[in-house]
């Protein structure tokens, strides 16, 4: 029998018992659509987060601190929870205890192969931003970036800042509305006032407030980071020095605690990170962060798709049941087929293909339904809470998901068919022909 004959026979037999076949297929459809819809949502959201992180932390940058733990605070500690860790005495109690890197450290890092340059990682706090001459103040998150990182942000108007930029900034798209600009172009050339209050103020010590003036030279595309204002490293240093009331900050006397090393190719990032760790320092790449996100999403998706898998498992019982019923109904037919030359393996394959066809049809219909639901979710989200992210889809169907879910349902149904198929193939032809 050729494969075509097996398929013809399988679909003919499924068509003979339309209602029963449809119900069995429906069970597979439910499982397949659950698995694929949940996975597609997971892929969409993960892709969105990944893109955002990629924009904030380029793949060719290695972050360096005196210890690995500095990075764990932000990325693994709070996300994983768990019981409090025991600490050794020399480790100290506070993980926020940032020890500065030395000038020697920086020279060592810059001497590594593939490292092009290093820049301090500057954490900035500003109290507010307002248009020069206007009253309304807005919240802001300042990013002090080397030009090569600032250039990774997509602009809708203007130009990027350079490493030599002084008093120039790029604003997040969200500010257009806050400042009342109709067009992104309207913002260009406008002056901003960023107000910074010294850190001492937090402890009630006498502190100063200072205004820093910037000119808007560019407007960024929409991202999750809707309050970001990007300035050059030099401007960042100046603000940070005022904020900390420490004029020597970010000089060789008082070096930064976190450096960002630029690598001349993202494929070397992991290697450079390893070499930096070999120097006794802590290093982190964007892949490390994405790895953590990937792990978390992997767990979420595994849990979610487990529901779909359970549904598929239940559906496989339906497949077994349907095929065993079919054997009873078609006992004489099986006898005739054997009498005219069907071997055991032919009969076995006949029923296996019939079961797999149920899974295949269920898989196709299930994925199609999930795709339709996903598109509906995307559509609804774009007119509601995701209005500002036209290119982002919550539900994403890469080809491998479509193929994978159809293959999975087919294989599960095929496995379910093995036992009934084995039973059918072992029927004795004489007894089968006598069967009433």
């Amino acid at each position, binding site marked *: 029998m*050729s494969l075509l004959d097996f398929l013809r026979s399988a679909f003919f037999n499924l068509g003979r018992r339309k209602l029963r076949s449809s119900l069995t297929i429906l069970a597979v459809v439910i499982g397949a659509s659950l698995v694929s819809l949940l996975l597609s949502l997971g892929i969409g959201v993960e892709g969105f987060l990944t893109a955002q992180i990629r924009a904030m932390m380029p793949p060719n940058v290695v972050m360096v601190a005196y210890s690995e733990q500095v990075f764990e605070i932000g990325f693994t500690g709070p996300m994983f929870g768990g019981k409090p860790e025991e600490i050794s005495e020399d480790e100290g109690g506070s993980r926020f205890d940032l020890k500065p890197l030395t000038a020697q450290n920086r020279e060592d890092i810059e001497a590594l192969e593939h490292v092009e340059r290093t820049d301090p990682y500057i954490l900035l706090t500003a109290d507010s931003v307002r248009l020069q001459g206007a009253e309304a103040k807005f919240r802001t998150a300042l990013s002090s970036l080397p030009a090569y990182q600032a250039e990774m942000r997509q602009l809708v108007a203007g130009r990027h800042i350079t490493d030599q930029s002084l008093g120039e900034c790029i604003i997040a798209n969200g500010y257009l509305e806050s400042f009342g600009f109709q067009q992104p172009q309207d913002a260009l050339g406008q002056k901003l006032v960023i107000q910074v209050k010294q850190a001492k103020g937090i402890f009630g010590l006498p502190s100063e407030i200072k205004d820093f003036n910037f000119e808007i030279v560019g407007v960024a595309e929409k991202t999750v980071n809707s309050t970001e204002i990007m300035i050059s490293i030099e401007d960042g240093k100046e603000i940070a020095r005022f904020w900390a009331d420490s004029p020597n900050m970010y000089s060789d006397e008082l070096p930064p605690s976190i450096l960002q090393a630029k690598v001349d190719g993202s494929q070397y990032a992991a290697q450079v990170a390893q070499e930096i760790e070999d120097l006794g320092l802590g290093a982190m790449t964007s892949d490390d962060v994405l790895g953590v996100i990937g792990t978390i999403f992997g767990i979420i998706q595994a849990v979610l798709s487990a529901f779909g898998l359970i549904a598929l498992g239940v559906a496989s019982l339906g497949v077994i049941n349907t095929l065993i019923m079919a054997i009873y109904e078609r006992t*004489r037919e099986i006898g005739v087929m*054997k*009498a*005219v*030359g069907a*071997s055991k393996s*032919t009969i076995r394959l006949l029923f296996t293909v019939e079961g797999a066809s149920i899974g295949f049809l269920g898989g196709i219909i299930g994925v199609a339904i999930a795709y339709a639901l996903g598109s509906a979710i995307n559509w609804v989200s774009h007119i509601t809470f995701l209005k500002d992210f036209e290119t982002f889809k919550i539900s994403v169907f890469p080809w491998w998901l479509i193929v994978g879910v159809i293959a999975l349902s087919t294989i599960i149904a095929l496995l379910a068919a093995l036992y009934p198929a084995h039973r059918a193939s072992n029927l004795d032809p*004489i007894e089968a022909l006598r069967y009433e």
Partner: protein
Amino acid sequence: MIELHNVWRLYRMGRETINALASINLEISEGEFVSIVGPSGSGKSTLLNIIGGLDSPTTGRIEVDGQDLSKASDKELSSYRNKKVGVVFQTFNLQSTHSALENVSLPLVFARVPLRKRNQIAEEVMKTVGLSGRLKHTPSQLSGGERQRVAIARALVNNPKILLADEPTGNLDSKTSEQIMGLLTSLNKERGITLVLVTHDLKTAEHADRMIQMFDGQIAGAADRK
């Protein structure tokens, strides 16, 4: 062509053992027409099923065309049933959901003949049994005689050397029976096909070259008509 050496077929029913066949020795040569007669339960069908490769002896040896069926694997046996022998049953055993043409071409499916060729061959064979106008009919739309012709066409479609018929006219009226018998004997006479026919009817049995009498699972006697 067909050789049975000391063939036994036992059925165990609790403590009892039924000898459906006991110590059968039989030789049938190529092109021969043998009829098997005997009372109900004497083992005629059992013997035919063993020759047809549908059943195996409990002990003993059966050889067809030099092939030892008692040692054959499932693959070899199914290929034997497919190509070497054709079986015609008393109850026709047609697939009720398929057309006459599809029924006739079923053995060709397992012989891996492509669809187009299958239909062509099956149509040809249906013509020789006088069913050219009944290709699309399902068994329920056919008369008893026509159904048996479909069954015969199916048995012939792979051009077997041996045709086994187990009371092929048992369910038919006498006129139709005669037509079917005429068809079977002509296949034997004109095509030289080896024909083994089980029947209750002595008159029918007498058409054969040799008549074998069975009783209680044993061959009680044989009459040569040549």
